[in-house]
């Protein structure tokens, strides 16, 4: 009996809150982020960013006179949980658009739900398979890994560097990067002369680098996230290797320079998302003001620097609100609005969506930078 009453109350409450939200003219946005668990370095800044933006928007009077309400759930990086929570967002909370999930695995699991329930999903995960092939209701904001790889290879061909030694980490990020560099290198006429790997927890890569030193390639490309690349950078200096060293966008933060040491990191080049390096961008860069505002607002609200990952949620927010402003606030109108996005300047780059491209970023999402004197400098 008690249970029955509880159910009744819940139903009443849900109905009541649903009617209330319609009456007040609010738009409900759902967030699915891995706030805790192994992927919390992604989910936490994403959640904080979204909360900050919603508050900012409501303080300014909302969008088209309508208030915004955000419901964020923590998926803990678990795909099964992500699916349950996505269903809850759609069925119980009745959101019009979902931002997230944070990881590729969760996004792939949630996609069928979004497609079936016809709710636009803007994923904050980088995996290429999320939007390739294109799904009607699914978008994603981080640029594909191969865009970063292409940036490096384009720069190398300008430098007349032809042979590449690969040193990649044996996790998802490293192996996807390794595959994509290999395919791109073949297309662009580079030769891969060494293909070495290291474990994510390895503490010494001198053996692999000694082998590479013996082969004498034109350049080394290391693909991984901290701390591996920092160890590689230290080892390169220890072995006195003078071959140009390229890193992935995965280490485009000051943390990398700090870990490797400014001396060892001197001269290392990598494609960086613009947020990490906005203070060295030319002032007339279209993204400059937005990046600076975001970083400063984030610092003010949370006391730490904004991260690229939080930027993915920012992008998703801009895409969604831009679509709401232009097309309307029902799920269907938001979806077509996002698809019609043209040159929307945001954190990760300028988005131009089309029915064939649900990511919308190109090579301009990254800038090639070089470490000099413990800081980034742009390379042309």
């Amino acid at each position, binding site marked *: 009996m008690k249970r029955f009453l509880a159910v009744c109350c819940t139903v009443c409450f849900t109905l009541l809150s649903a009617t209330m939200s319609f009456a007040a003219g609010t738009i409900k946005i759902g967030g699915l982020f891995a706030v805790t668990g192994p992927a919390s370095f992604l989910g936490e800044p994403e959640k904080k960013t979204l909360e900050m933006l919603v508050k900012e928007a409501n303080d300014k009077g909302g969008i088209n006179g309508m208030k915004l309400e955000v419901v964020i759930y923590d998926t803990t990086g678990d795909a099964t949980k992500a699916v349950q929570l996505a269903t809850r967002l759609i069925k119980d909370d009745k959101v019009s658009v979902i931002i997230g999930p944070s990881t590729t695995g969760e996004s792939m699991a949630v996609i069928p739900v979004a497609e079936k329930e016809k709710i636009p999903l803007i994923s904050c995960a980088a995996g290429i398979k999320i939007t390739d092939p294109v799904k009607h209701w699914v978008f994603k904001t981080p640029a594909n890994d191969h865009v970063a790889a292409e940036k490096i290879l384009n720069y190398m061909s300008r430098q007349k560097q032809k042979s590449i030694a690969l040193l990649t980490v044996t996790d998802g990020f490293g192996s996807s990067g390794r595959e994509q560099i290999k395919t791109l290198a073949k297309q662009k006429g580079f030769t891969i002369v060494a293909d070495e790997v290291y474990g994510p927890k390895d*503490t010494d890569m001198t*053996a692999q680098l000694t082998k590479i030193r013996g082969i004498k390639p034109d350049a080394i490309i290391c693909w991984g996230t901290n701390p591996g690349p920092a160890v590689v950078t230290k080892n390169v200096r220890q072995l006195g290797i003078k071959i140009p060293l390229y890193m992935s966008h995965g280490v485009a933060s000051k*943390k990398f320079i700090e*870990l490797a040491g400014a001396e060892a990191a001197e001269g290392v080049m990598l494609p960086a998302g613009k947020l990490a390096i906005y203070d060295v961008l030319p002032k007339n860069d279209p993204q400059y003001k937005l990046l600076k505002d975001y970083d400063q607002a984030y610092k003010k609200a949370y006391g730490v620097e904004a991260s690229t990952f939080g930027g993915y949620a920012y992008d998703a927010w801009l895409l969604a609100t831009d679509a709401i402003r232009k097309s309307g606030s029902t799920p269907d109108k938001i979806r077509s609005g996002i698809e019609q996005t043209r040159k929307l300047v945001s954190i990760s780059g300028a988005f131009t969506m089309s029915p064939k491209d649900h990511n919308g970023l190109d090579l301009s999402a990254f800038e090639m930078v070089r470490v000099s004197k413990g800081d980034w400098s742009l390379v042309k």
Partner: protein
Amino acid sequence: MQFDQLLQYTLSGLSTGAIYALIGIGFSIIYNATGIINFAQGEFVMLGGLLTLSCLDLLKLPLWAAIPCAVAVSTVAGLLFERLAIRPLRQPTPINLVIITIGGSILIRGLAMLIWGKDTHSIPPFSGDEPIAIGGATILPQHLWILAITLVIIAINKIYFYHTISGKAMRACAYNRRAAGLVGIDVRRMVLFSFMISSALGAVAGIIVAPLTMTAYDVGVMLGLKGFCAAIIGGMSSGIATVVGGLLLGVLESLGAGLISSGYKDAIAFIILLLILFIRPQGLFGKADSERV
């Protein structure tokens, strides 16, 4: 194959191996005093590195003061671990104890994650980071520190276990707990001692490797496993055999990565471990032990 490449592989291997050896000795000291494998050993390695970092950053101590401070705190952690987790056990069968150490390691790692966060941190090297060239190969000053400290620790170990009363008493506990108790050795105190010594050793290992490998809340897992490998190769002796085991493991890993394939680097370590467990469970240098049945 050029000579300088081979030399570099060997040198890299030796310096990594010395780290494994130092951690391995920690395993074997506890094993020799209590007959259990302390799987939380790797966590003390992590504690050493991270506590040094806190001493440097928060307390603003100079490096020479931060290191003993970190070792002392880790030793206290080892003491608490023994007192709170190992001693209260009603039925201290080896399997229960081993499982408790695994639980303890997860707890310590979790606490470290809450205290220091998930980021990787770096610690400055003891004496600069200008590479030293040895006939075409290069090593860092920190590698020399590691080798030297390992040697000193082996020497102290040897003196302690063979030339002091408490060291001999600890060995007696390992041979036969009950007999040791009967001749008046306080077995529980010896067990406590062994945990303190090995947590201090683990912390030292963690501190001297941190400038090279950097440190984070989860570095203990892999380093602990490799140290365990070294101890197994050395037949769980707390002396030179474990050191040779560690060095051998380091060199084989490095040669394997350089000459065969870097993808198999960890596989090589664990294949050696399995082979030794199958063929010579008493260790590479040990005599077959007929007493433990």
